[in-house]
């Protein structure tokens, strides 16, 4: 009996926690479907009287958020593709190829993880200004071309590849790049998937750097556009919620599809080998 009471209590706490966690997101979706003004009328409603997609239509037609959506998609995809290649090359080399200073270099990279990203942002902005890359897609991508964390993850994974597999390929006369492409990469598929999801979501959600480097509205990513929209439409609650849904939905869908890999990545990133 005591056990059942305990279970009931546990469930009560867990379900209350789940409700509290979901509530802000559900409220966001609900308000985004309300006709203009309904959420701010008194008394405010929790559910739309007549659900409408009007706010989304306004975002896409009058406010050009479709353009920002496209920018975010393009930049997140490009950052993912580029960094995956560079990190996989370097991560494999740090794990399995021999070169002078390898371990010292790797330790230096790990030590640099303690440097917060904001420290280099001001000179990076000036550097890109000199290079003519401010206010360009490339300017947004530059800090994420390769990542120390990504190299680390792939290195840890590559350490587990049996040496005999690599030796066999070398005996067969395969070149190092060939081995990487046709043996290492297929073996690394799980960690590559994890890293791809991380990078895509990280780039999609990033705010400070795109805010700094992009001034042209046509190039803005969704989070930057959303923050700007708040400046002009702070009163239009329903519209802002629709914009938030639009920003959040793609990453939530992606997470729903690749949840296992995503969580696995966090766990393996925190367990240091």
């Amino acid at each position, binding site marked *: 009996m005591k056990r059942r009471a305990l279970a009931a209590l546990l469930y009560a706490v867990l379900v209350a926690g789940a409700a509290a966690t979901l509530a802000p997101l559900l409220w966001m979706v609900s308000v985004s479907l309300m006709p203009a003004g309904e959420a701010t009328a008194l008394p405010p409603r929790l559910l739309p009287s007549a659900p409408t997609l009007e706010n989304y239509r306004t975002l896409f037609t009058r406010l050009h958020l479709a353009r920002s959506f496209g920018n975010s998609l393009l930049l997140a995809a490009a950052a993912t593709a580029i960094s995956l290649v*560079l990190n996989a090359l370097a991560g494999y080399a740090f794990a399995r190829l021999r070169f002078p200073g390898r371990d010292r270099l790797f330790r230096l990279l790990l030590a640099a993880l303690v440097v917060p990203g904001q420290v280099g942002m001001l000179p990076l902005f000036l550097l890109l200004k000199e290079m003519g890359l401010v206010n360009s897609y490339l300017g947004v991508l530059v800090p994420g071309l390769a990542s120390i964390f990504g190299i680390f993850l792939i290195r840890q994974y590559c350490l587990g590849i049996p040496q005999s597999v690599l030796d066999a390929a070398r005996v067969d006369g395969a070149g190092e790049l060939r081995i990487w492409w046709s043996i290492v990469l297929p073996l690394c598929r799980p960690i590559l998937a994890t890293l791809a999801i991380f990078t895509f979501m990280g780039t999609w959600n990033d705010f400070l750097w795109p805010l700094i480097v992009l001034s042209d509205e046509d190039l803005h990513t969704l989070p930057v556009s959303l923050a700007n929209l708040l400046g002009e439409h702070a009163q239009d609650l329903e519209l802002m919620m629709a914009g938030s849904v639009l920003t959040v939905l793609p*990453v939530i869908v992606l997470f729903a599809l690749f949840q296992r890999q995503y969580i696995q990545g*966090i766990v393996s990133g925190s367990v*240091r080998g």
Partner: protein
Amino acid sequence: MNPAFWFVAPALAAIGLFFFVPVAASLGLSLTDFDIYSVADLANLRFVGLANYGRLLEDAAFWTALRNTAYFVVVGAPLSVATSLAAALLLGSRLVRWKALLRTIYFLPVVTTLVAVAVVWRFLYHPRVGPLARLFEALGLPAVDWLGDPAFAMPAIILLAVWKGFGFNMVIFVAGLQAIPERLYEAARLDGASAAQQFRHVTLPMLAPTTSFVLLMTLIGHFQLFAEPYVMTQGGPGDATRSIVLLMYEQGFRWWSLGQAAAIAFVLFGIILAVSLAARAAGLLGGGDGAEARP
């Protein structure tokens, strides 16, 4: 040429040019009076030594930002980690089913876009139409203007940060709990240990390395508070939520005092470095660092 060169060169060139060089240059920049005139013409640039740092020490706005950030870190990070641990322990209970679903729900805020959920919470806290105000009214609690009251603005941001972030550390704790060998609990039970005693003498010590790691990473992440006050309060009301990074952003990209802003960035770096080294000296962390705390 060693073939390994071609494997590491692209990534190292990118990281070197766009990370290490700017970080080093930032130190140099912080020793100059780089401002709006230097942006126009580099001939206006002068070396000023430690003057930027000296000015920070006398700048009330800087101390306020430091205090606000410390508030967010010291209260917010432990609260976030404690919530994560509590959620992981509840989920770990053998009595609970639907674990996967609950875990997914708790984790959901982690993947959301910070700017978007900060927008949502800004309205959630709205004193007139916000659901939270309605809830307080229904419960007969006094009305609170969350983001408009200097005493409540930072707690409101901390609450958002806990909501947004606790799922991340929760999954690390869940993995840590699963790694504790079952036989330790069996042995404790044989010795007649109660559930509370098992928790105190088996779970907590076995989880200590995970906890220190998670806490340190969360502390470091919390030092970088920016988007929440940028979107929700613009640093207000008054200066109550202006964080170090927000101050740096305003100095650098609103007033174009890049020299001054670089000094702020370096102070932040110094603090984070000091916290990491202190944690390492206290034996809280072994080996290299592995994860970014705020994805």
